[in-house]
């Protein structure tokens, strides 16, 4: 057949030399490589004691943010729940009463805000959908737990700690 390009190579099958047939030089070569690794530093990260450094855009556990006065930013508009492809977010809205201005930023707030961490796929769409910059996935890895119900995180676990405490 006419070659299509000049890149074609003819496969050569040479008979093995005596050293190649004796295996031992090849085995010694292999042993040399592995013993070099014996003296190398292990790449293991001993997890509970040492922690791997996350990248800048790592998406971990969610947190509901407060503003500069310590009031909750979330206005329970529901855009995060709407944008969530896994339907992990549920919330119940409530109206702000008189005297609660220091607690909630807008007239409406989320009385109940729950994320099911078993459903969440950490896509970050809630973060993007939020018009009030109230939710960020800037936390750590979601810790393990024994019961499924313990993975439904309410406001107690999600809301950022108050400013001066």
């Amino acid at each position, binding site marked *: 057949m006419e070659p299509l390009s000049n890149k074609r190579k003819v496969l050569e099958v040479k008979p093995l030399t005596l050293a190649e047939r004796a295996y*031992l030089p090849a*085995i010694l070569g*292999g*042993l040399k*490589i*592995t*013993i070099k*690794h*014996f003296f*190398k*530093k*292990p*790449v*293991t990260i*001993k997890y509970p004691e040492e922690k791997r450094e996350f990248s800048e855009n790592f998406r971990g556990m969610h947190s509901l943010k407060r503003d500069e006065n310590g009031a909750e930013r979330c206005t329970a508009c529901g855009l995060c729940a709407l944008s969530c492809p896994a339907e992990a977010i549920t919330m119940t809205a409530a109206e702000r009463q008189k005297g609660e201005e220091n607690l909630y930023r807008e007239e409406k707030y989320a009385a109940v805000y729950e994320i099911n961490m078993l459903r969440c796929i950490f896509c970050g769409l809630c973060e993007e959908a939020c018009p009030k910059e109230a939710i960020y996935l800037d936390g750590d890895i979601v810790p393990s737990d024994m019961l499924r119900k313990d993975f439904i995180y309410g406001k107690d676990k999600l809301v950022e700690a108050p400013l001066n405490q």
Partner: protein
Amino acid sequence: MGVSELIIKAILVVVIFAISLVVAMYSTYAERKIAAFLQDRVGPNRAGPWGLLQPLADGGKMFMKEEIIPTRASGFLFIVGPALAIMTACIGSAVIPWGQKIVAGNTVIDLQVTDINVGILYIFGVVSLGVYGIMIGGWASNNKYSLLGAIRAASQNISYEISMGLSIIALLMVTGTLSLKEIAEQQHGWHWNVIYQPFGFLLFLVCAFAETNRSPFDLPECETELVGGYHTEYSSMKLGFYLFAEYINMFISSAVMATLYWGGYNYPGMDWVTAHVGPVIGPLIGTAVLFAKIFLFIFFFMWVRWTIPRFRYDQLMDLGWKALIPLAITNIVITGAWITIYDKFFK
């Protein structure tokens, strides 16, 4: 044989038995650690300092696990298999000279359980008995994969035993005795047999790898083709005994190699050391040297295991029958010719 001598022998038996078990136990730990280091990992490091309690934890787990005997398995043989495997692995240590005689006052302690004048033949007999453990285990499981693994093990061990025996014959022509004690004594100082029989040692080493079912010749336990090999149906400590027997075998064969070829408990300048530290500490240093050699061999076994991939079965048989046996016979012929020439012209 007096009562005191019997007591000394009994203590020696128990000590050697305990040492083989402990060495085998910590070989599993060493295996995992060495594997880890060769692969840039850390290895077991959670149980105790540096993971040193890991073998105990493994053993405890093995004993706790549920024991399953398949319904159609042959009940008696199924239990005899691992027992036989570990027993034959242990009794090989009886003829190995672990050190020189310790002279403390009037009592002379011989650091060898028994010095029979057919020591090497005894070792060979014990090693070939080891096949029965594997063969019976594979047969009694009533599982075709186990049986195939057992057949592989049997044919592999028998094939390599031939070349092993032939490589030993050249050594026996040099030493002129079958007693391991005498062979060890002949290598006094630095007259190690490996200097006179380097090629024979190489053949013996390859055969030892095959006899102990270590990688690259660990075909009886091929996970990919045979599920688990001859111990597929085994669970809990019965499986543990099979795996344990492999490590004891490795320890004993390292000891045999060190004694036959690498001078045993001899090291250069041992007379000077013995004269200076006394007749009790001196032989013990020799024993320590022997153990250092044994540990080096065990390390080498593991080093090879984590380097070389497993042989294909036909390659294994080709190597055994078409390469090692002719080479061993050639070695015998060359050795014989050399001894004849030496005796005639240089003596």
